[in-house]
């Protein structure tokens, strides 16, 4: 596939940090119809290489649908997704991940019968350099590759201080730890863009505060872009540099947290229209 660059008028809100760099993710007029229903329409967004952005909107606005479009769970019916300048049109979910988009799920999807460590090393499969024969015989590079994979897994677990859980079954973890493990599993695929679908759902304020710190830490350490869907406004307003607001599948506002907070359209979408006096 030939990388194609489409000239897009600047819609992005690049942070100073990313100034002069090419966007890592770009959606151009992205849309999908389910039958006659346009679940997402003309969605445009640009994400700088180390930007943390939020995607917010009322329930049913199409936020998760956008994640599913980006990861090719659904094939878009309109528009283009450019990942590092490369069109992902012909890729499937696994290929998109290999190209650099990793995600978590709103309803946690861990490999619950596998250990925490296995959950993470499974996500490293692409980087583990031995094949079927090596898997069956444990010969050749098996030992070295497994050892380095385990070490990398432990390093990832240390981000959330979860080393102690390494050998526990993923399904037996407490809820918050499962959410954190899902983030680590996504990070293990070495992504350029991390999509987090309601990472703070079900967390208490203390855990949420910790999560915020960790998202910033992950961004700094791995130098990746983060796009997150979240209903917890304190989290969104505190760590997101750009925010996109979606309502009924349409982008109604885009801007910095301050701009979004003051935007009348956003207030209307969330709270309803002011009654005429």
């Amino acid at each position, binding site marked *: 596939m030939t990388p194609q660059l489409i000239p897009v008028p600047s819609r992005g809100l690049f942070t100073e940090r990313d100034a002069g760099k090419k966007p890592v993710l770009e959606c151009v007029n992205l849309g999908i119809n389910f039958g006659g229903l346009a679940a997402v329409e003309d969605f445009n967004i640009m994400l700088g290489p180390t930007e943390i952005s939020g995607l917010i909107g009322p329930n049913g606005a199409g936020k998760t649908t956008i994640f599913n479009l980006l*990861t090719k*769970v659904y094939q878009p019916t309109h528009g283009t997704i450019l990942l590092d300048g490369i069109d992902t049109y012909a890729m*499937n*979910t*696994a*290929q998109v*991940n*290999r190209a650099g988009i*990793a*995600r978590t*799920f709103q309803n946690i*999807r*861990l*490999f*619950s*019968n*596998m250990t925490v460590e*296995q*959950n993470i*090393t*499974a*996500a490293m*499969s*692409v980087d*583990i350099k*031995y*094949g*079927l024969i*090596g*898997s*069956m*015989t*444990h010969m050749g590079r*098996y030992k070295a*590759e*497994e050892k380095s994979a385990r070490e990398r897994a432990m390093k990832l677990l240390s981000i959330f201080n979860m080393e102690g859980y390494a*050998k526990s079954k993923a399904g037996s973890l407490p809820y918050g730890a499962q959410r954190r493990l899902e983030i680590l*599993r*996504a990070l*293990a*695929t070495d992504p350029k863009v991390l999509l987090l679908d309601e990472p703070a759902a079900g967390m208490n304020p203390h855990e949420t505060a910790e999560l915020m710190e960790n998202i910033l830490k992950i961004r700094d350490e791995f130098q990746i872009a983060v796009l997150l869907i979240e209903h917890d406004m304190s989290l969104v307003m505190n760590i997101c540099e750009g925010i996109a607001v979606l309502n009924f599948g349409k982008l109604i506002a885009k801007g910095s947290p301050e701009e979004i907070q003051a935007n009348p359209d956003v207030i209307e979408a969330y709270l309803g229209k002011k009654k005429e006096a």
Partner: protein
Amino acid sequence: MKKKHVSKNVLTLCAVAVLYAVIAYMLYSGGLKRQVTNMLIPTSVYIVLAVSLNLVVGLLGELSLGHAGFMSVGLFSGCLVSIALVDVLPTPLRIVISMIVGGLFAAVAGLIVGLPALRLKGDYLAIVTLACGEIIKNVITNLDITGGPIGLNTKPIYTGAKGLLPYAIALVFVTVIVMMNLKKSKIGREIMAIRDNRIAAESIGINITYCKLAVFIIAAFFAGAAGCIYGHAFANVKAASFDYNMSIEILVLVVLGGMGSVSGSIIAAIVLSVLPEALRGFSDYRMLAYAIVLILVMLMSNNPRIKALREKLKLRRSGRKEGAA
């Protein structure tokens, strides 16, 4: 914890090795009853079948009811090669080659059956594999080269238990080691990831097509190789005996031994091969007693109290290991 896993696998291998050493010693010194001797090869074959089916059912989590079909593909292709080579090659080489050929033919059958498995799952896949097994049976029954309904005359390559046991042992070991290795490897993790959550597996870049086909091909290969040995143990083999009943019998071994557990499959295969013989005392009620024993074992292994007891034992064992390390 990692040490515990290694030692558990080594323990299983050692147990199998000791068991076979005792049996081999008794067999070659002539201390084994005819009844037991006749059971050796079928039991070994069942171990291989159960352990290989466990890859599909336990690790990939898909129900396959066509394992007897793969076995008979391997049996007939392997035995035909063996018959053709009977005057050309020395026996050991001939049996090994025919096993590999049988395995490869079965692997091709596994690939063909594996293709629908990419689209289907659960009950639907079970029905398709069941149908594939029956198709294989009917095709082989209607082919001239395999002797048709009368069955294939395998007298020229017939080898007694004494002659076949080394090959059967070797096959059991290769199968068990490969399955244990797979479980603890990259591909094994990918397969289990698909079992636990297909959507998440895709989202972390796992190639589902490749993994599923690999599972079906590997499982079919070992079933085919086992079938080839099975064919050498009889003077005549009919395709009709490898029907869905046998596939279900193999599935029972896997379920009884525990999904995904290699050692469980081995134990179940041995127990269920020995059981019908051990129950001969019940004469007419033999199969009834067999069914009752099966039901009891199933109930027991699912009893919460026994489960809790097992967990406790497991914890104690791993605790001791960690303390030692």
